[in-house]
């Protein structure tokens, strides 16, 4: 079993020191889809960047398998952890097919020299994200939802054991959002560690095996959606009142008012 562990890490972000502290072990197992939830600025993105090895913790360490992430070479790290950022900006109007192939740059090959293994990984990514009809289109001509799926396919093409996705559902309609979550769940089912930062609490409860709730740079709750999404937690972290109900075995969270303090 592969484990990704954030061991007492502490990071300072930006020019205004706002330390994000993880107390105790925050551990992620393979085969599980974990959702990071919390208000804007709670520290989810910074934490994901630390897990991806893009920001070195000021204290503590990240352990993947049985080794500290700081002992990994950049190439080993890149082959083990795929990162899908929140920002969907693409600089040049490349074709969707080429963009997905960029995931294989991890293995030191140029795009003109992809081998059989690369093609298998790319084809798998295309298949699960259902983007085969978009491949020959320029990224500039795609809608937000189509672009999100192509970018997810790029991250999947890395074929890493860990997939970190930072708000992949931002600005997507419910259909596209559920499609993305289906893919993430399916990838977790294939034995990967999948961690996703989310704002849609119903989708988080519907799809994630475990949730980690962030507030002001700290983890305040961790566990199953039922345990984490309590009325007190929602009021404390999001300052909302929400209706919790069960529908056909699924937990639905519907915010209806701002909580007064």
């Amino acid at each position, binding site marked *: 079993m592969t484990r990704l562990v954030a061991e007492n890490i502490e990071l300072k972000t930006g020019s205004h020191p706002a330390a994000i502290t993880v107390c105790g072990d925050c551990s992620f197992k393979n085969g599980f889809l974990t959702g990071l939830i919390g208000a804007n600025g709670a520290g989810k993105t910074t934490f994901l960047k630390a897990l991806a090895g893009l920001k070195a913790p000021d204290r503590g360490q990240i352990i993947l398998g049985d080794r500290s992430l700081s002992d990994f070479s950049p190439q080993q790290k890149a082959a083990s*952890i795929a*990162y899908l*950022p929140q920002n969907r900006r693409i600089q040049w109007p490349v074709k969707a097919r080429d963009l997905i192939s960029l995931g294989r740059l991890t293995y030191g090959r140029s795009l003109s020299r992809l081998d059989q293994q690369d093609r298998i990984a790319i084809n798998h990514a295309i298949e699960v994200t259902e983007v085969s009809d978009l491949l020959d289109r320029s990224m500039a001509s795609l809608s937000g939802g189509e672009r999100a799926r192509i970018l997810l396919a790029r991250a999947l093409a890395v074929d890493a054991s860990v997939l970190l996705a930072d708000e992949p559902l931002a600005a997507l309609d419910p259909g596209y959002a559920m499609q993305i979550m289906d893919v993430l769940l399916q990838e977790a089912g294939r034995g990967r560690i999948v961690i996703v930062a989310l704002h849609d609490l119903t989708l988080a409860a519907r799809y994630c095996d475990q949730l980690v709730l962030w507030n002001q740079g700290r983890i305040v709750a961790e566990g199953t959606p039922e345990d984490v999404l309590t009325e007190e937690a929602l009021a404390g972290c999001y300052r909302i009142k929400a209706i919790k109900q069960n529908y056909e075995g699924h937990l639905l969270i519907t915010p209806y008012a701002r909580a007064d303090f």
Partner: protein
Amino acid sequence: MRFFSDLLSFYRRHRLLINLSLCLPPMALLSLSIGSTHIGIHALIQSIAGVGDPTARMILGLLRLPRLCVGLGVGAILGMAGAVNQGYLRNPLADPSLLGTSNAAALGAVLAFYFGFSARFVFCLPLFAFIGALAGLLPLLWFVRRHNDPQSLILGGVAIAAFSGACISLALNLSPNPFAAMEIMTWLMGAITDRSWNHVLLLSVPFCLSLFLFRKTASALDALILGDDVAASLGFDLVRLRWLIMAALSIGVGGAVAVSGSIGFVGLIVPHILRPFTRQLPSELLWPSAVGGALLVTFADIFVRLLPTENELQLGVVTAFIGVPIFFRQAIKGVEAMKSL
């Protein structure tokens, strides 16, 4: 049969580069043939074979061949430098002068003129230009150590370019006589007339080194399409990449300015013109831009010789005149495509 299908697929993958490369020999022959003394194709082939009219052989060996080599080399460096710069800075307006390298090199050369070193020793001028390019890099390195992102690099580069430009204007302002000012102005416009094999030799090292270093950036430039974080998560060391590009730029552009003066626009327009013929991947643009740059400078140099002007026009002026209309057309198309991203 398999050989032909492999050949066809190789051609399809590198179509742009192959087509541009096929234009090089006729362009080179044209460049060798045209000038104040016309050398026909028959005499040209005879001279290359080492027989025929000794005057034609002398003109070719001592004047036109080194001039052609310098043109090809300078064009290739500037073209590839432009493609790398645009890819790295993710800015279609980037060119080699954006980081101040061209201006700093030009300042070095102007100082050689101003203090009269250029008259004392033939290699003083290129040497000063080269030192200028490297000197321009030092404050930039200090600056980007504190601010590690492409935008800061552009800002630092613009500051160096502006400072070097101001120093050049000061030198012109304080110039002891109008002839010295004229000499500086003419050099600043860029030219490859009267270049010798010594200049070719001087350019050969920066040419090989910079093109080799630029080529090493190809995959990282592709990864940067998705931004710094994704490129880093794909295993690219962005700090190393920045050093690599800055070193290659100062070596290459410094060397080019050292032998030819400031030839503008090549690094800006060549990648722009060629980009629509690629898959828009920065890596695919590097070698075609090098060949395209070589073609553009050689073509402009032929053009310079064909124009019936009293004084031969400077190369930098002609590259701008040829390139800008094409650039304008391509830029409008490119901006439309970029807007929707």
